[in-house]
């Protein structure tokens, strides 16, 4: 239980209402020096807590002991209240709503007409059924049954000797976060850089469960024939993913949604090619991955800070909301994109520089080779005619930062501090 917890009394009331665990955030911050300035989002925290500014961080006067001391006092106060109530432990106290004097707390004109009986209900259960957390009852996530265990076994050569491994596998939507445990093995052995490209190649068939290919490490390439649920490629960390409709599918891929919402959430590196349309919030908070898709729902590229996204088709509304970095290209054949884009932080440009044209062409060629997209083939074969139909979405601040960086001497190592203001 949490929300405005400050005192030992709060903890005791929480326990009587049925809580086993308690969250204290603001009050602990205050004990370390927070003065509730509500400037956490501006990098100007004058007590040096919520800021990266080195000068402001100098102003931080907090010590771990302050928080420790505060929490001891919360515990001490809770103990006093427990003693008054006659409880020896938190476990004894959990859920004892019968010991709660509620009259005063809910005797308020705003509370008239509200029925608290469900909230203050104490289930009538025999003693053999625990009404508080019992440590022996460990949570079982069934992780030993995850398909990744099989994959890790079959990838032994790749993991141990960095030798290429390739095989096919049927999957279903019960297989969540497929590839994440495998990525963990790669990362443990080879670190952030992972394995050489395409060391592990998996040909997957079926309907992928949630968070397909989450945190996929470099050197792992998934090709999925089928479709994927929400959160696919979440936190993608350098792996490569291609998602295509099954060969037997009778629908037109570029007109149909084959992956769910919130793809590539917080991805940092890697490549994703989707022959089909993605759901909403595609590439939200992406900071470095490259993706090609044939259409997206609402809020595409929301809060994106880096990377590159190509949309070879229609977008929903509110595209690029809060997008502060990276770049996006949208094939705007209908000519209505400008009305769908949120231009608060971005500018719409045509694709002018040779550099941009080259990277667009390169990514589309990779998309074609990885997915066999008819759309990509149509664009590439009519390159000169299609190029003017692309809109480049460029965040204002990103553009300014790139221009400033270009002026810096090449040898300069740019540190984070340079961006902290």
């Amino acid at each position, binding site marked *: 239980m949490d929300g405005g917890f400050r005192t030992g009394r709060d903890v005791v009331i929480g326990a009587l209402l049925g809580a086993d665990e308690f969250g204290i955030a603001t009050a602990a911050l205050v004990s370390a020096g927070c*003065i*509730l*300035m*509500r*400037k956490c989002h*501006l*990098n*100007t925290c*004058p*007590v040096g807590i919520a800021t990266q*500014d080195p*000068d*402001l961080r100098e*102003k931080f*006067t907090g*010590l771990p002991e302050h928080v420790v001391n505060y929490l001891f006092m919360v515990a001490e106060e809770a103990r006093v209240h427990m003693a008054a109530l006659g409880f020896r432990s938190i476990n004894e106290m959990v859920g004892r709503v019968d010991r709660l004097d509620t009259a005063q707390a809910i005797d308020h004109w705003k509370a008239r007409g509200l029925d608290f009986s469900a909230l203050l209900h104490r289930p009538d259960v025999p003693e053999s059924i625990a009404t508080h957390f019992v440590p022996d009852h460990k949570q079982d996530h069934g992780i030993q049954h995850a398909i990744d265990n099989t994959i890790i076994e079959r990838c032994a050569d790749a993991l141990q000797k960095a030798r290429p491994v390739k095989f096919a596998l049927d999957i279903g939507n019960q297989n969540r976060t497929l590839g994440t445990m495998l990525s963990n093995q790669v990362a443990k052995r080879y670190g952030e850089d992972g394995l050489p490209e395409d060391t592990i190649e998996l040909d997957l068939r079926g309907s992928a469960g949630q968070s397909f290919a989450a945190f996929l490490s470099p050197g792992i390439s998934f090709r999925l024939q089928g479709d994927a649920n929400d959160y696919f490629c979440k936190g993608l960390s350098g792996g490569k993913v291609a998602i295509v409709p099954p060969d037997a599918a009778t629908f037109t891929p570029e007109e149909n949604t084959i992956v769910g919402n919130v793809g590539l959430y917080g991805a940092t590196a890697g490549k994703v090619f989707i022959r089909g349309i993605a759901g909403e919030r595609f590439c939200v908070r992406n900071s470095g991955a490259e993706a090609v898709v044939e259409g997206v729902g609402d809020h595409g590229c929301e809060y994106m800070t880096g990377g590159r996204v190509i949309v070879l088709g229609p977008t929903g509304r509110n595209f690029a909301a809060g997008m502060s970095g990276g770049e996006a290209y949208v094939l705007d054949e209908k000519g209505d994109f400008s009305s769908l884009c949120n231009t608060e932080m971005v500018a719409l440009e045509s694709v002018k520089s040779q550099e941009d044209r080259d990277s667009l062409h390169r990514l589309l060629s990779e998309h074609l080779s990885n997915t066999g997209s008819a759309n990509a083939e149509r664009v590439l074969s009519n390159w000169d005619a299609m190029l003017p139909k692309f809109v480049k979405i460029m965040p204002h601040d990103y553009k300014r930062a790139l221009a400033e960086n270009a002026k810096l001497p090449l040898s300069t190592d740019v540190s984070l501090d340079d961006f902290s*203001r």
Partner: protein
Amino acid sequence: MGKPTGFIDFARVPLPKRAVPERVRDWQEFLLDWDPQEARHQAGRCMNCAVPMCHSYTGCPLGNIIPDWNDFVYQDRWDKALISLHSTNNFPEFTGRICPAPCEAACIVGRPRHYTDHVEADDPVTIEYIEKSIADRGWQEGWIEPEPPLVRTGKSVAVVGSGPAGMAAAQQLNRTGHWVTVYERSEYIGGLLRLGIPDFKLEKGVVQRRVDQMEAEGVKFEANTDVGKDFDANDLLDRYDAVCLTGGSTQARDLPVPGRELDGVHFAMEYLTQQNRVNSGYEVDSGIRINAKGKRVVILGGGDTGADCLGTAHRQGAEEVYQFEIMPEPPADRAGDNPWPQWPLVLRSSSAHEEGGVRDYNIVTTNLTGSNGTVKKLHGSSVSWGNGQPESVPGTEFEMDADLVLLAMGFLHPEHGGMLEQLDLDLDQRGNVLVDDEMRTSVAKVFSAGDMSRGQSLVVWAIAEGRDVARCIDQYLMGVTSLRPVLRRPVRPQQAGHVWK
């Protein structure tokens, strides 16, 4: 908060002052103006705190909405800043000049940071000078105009005493629609603002234009009228629906030592008011003229009134000026038992101290001697504060030449004779007029505010109390009121214990 990083990017820059050799030759104000860009930078230093201390707890007694008008100044919207400022303060041009600025002492930019081994602090926002700049700009631009009420209630109120509390109460009551008559026993309206505070801190035109504004709004001023002497104070009860007493704390603390009766020993207020009258063109008979020219002046009392005497003596051409205080010298920085955002009990130097004079502490005057009935010498000694009482330290006795001795040792309470006696009002244990939470005295339909009921205090408290007593009187007369209570309700000594309303 116009500029989020303003407090990092800009340093505190106070208003420039006229050079000392220049300003001690005349009586004009010592403060100059910023250029407009500097004003914006200074306002941009405000952090727009989520919990602004500058106008809550120990900050501005008026509850001036400081972050709002700082933001407007940064945006160059001086007109909006003025509206915001006037919404809580009737006379910002007074407080912008002569307030000790509790807001700045509470400002979070200036909040001390306690590290394990030392304490650091940044400079607070120049709130008071921004306030002055906004108010001065308003007058320059002609934005400050009479605001007469649209509707009259038909009720009438007498305000006795035209100092800042009386003026604030009168303006608030009149704007609410009541007919207000202000009685003042001196020939000038404005109380201590007009006759007590020297011109170099507050030029009298600044007061007069407010008086003119209030007259144009419909307030009636009766100067040269001493209620209780010229007519019985009880007459007011018959003639008005409510009476508001804002006569100030005018009974000065005396120095009961041998030689007090000598010529050349004066209360500070005799001295300061006379000079203010002279500056206004009043011909003072040379027999009663108190002039420090060529004299050795000793000021007894280390407070603001003493500092005003100091600046006045220098401008009159005093030979030497000494300012003695019986209390110990305050520390330069906050003591451990005086944490932020409490009002810091530290050594303060006013503009007058920059102009010369010698300050000394822990000094008690034991007697005064003279010849031909005129003071010539002051005899005193150092004191120690062993058990909370001053005790002369043996062997530290001294005597010094003194041609003019000014007593600036504070004020005790209002004068009890005359008006207060006739109305038969209850007094509190300090001798001030006793009022309740709604600022009512012990006599029906008589209210009191300002120094008269709270004891000697600041102009900003006087304005705050004046505004609040207007609300209480409006509530009393009409049964309802649209006037807002000031943010920090006045707290009186006898109410200590249940502080926050």
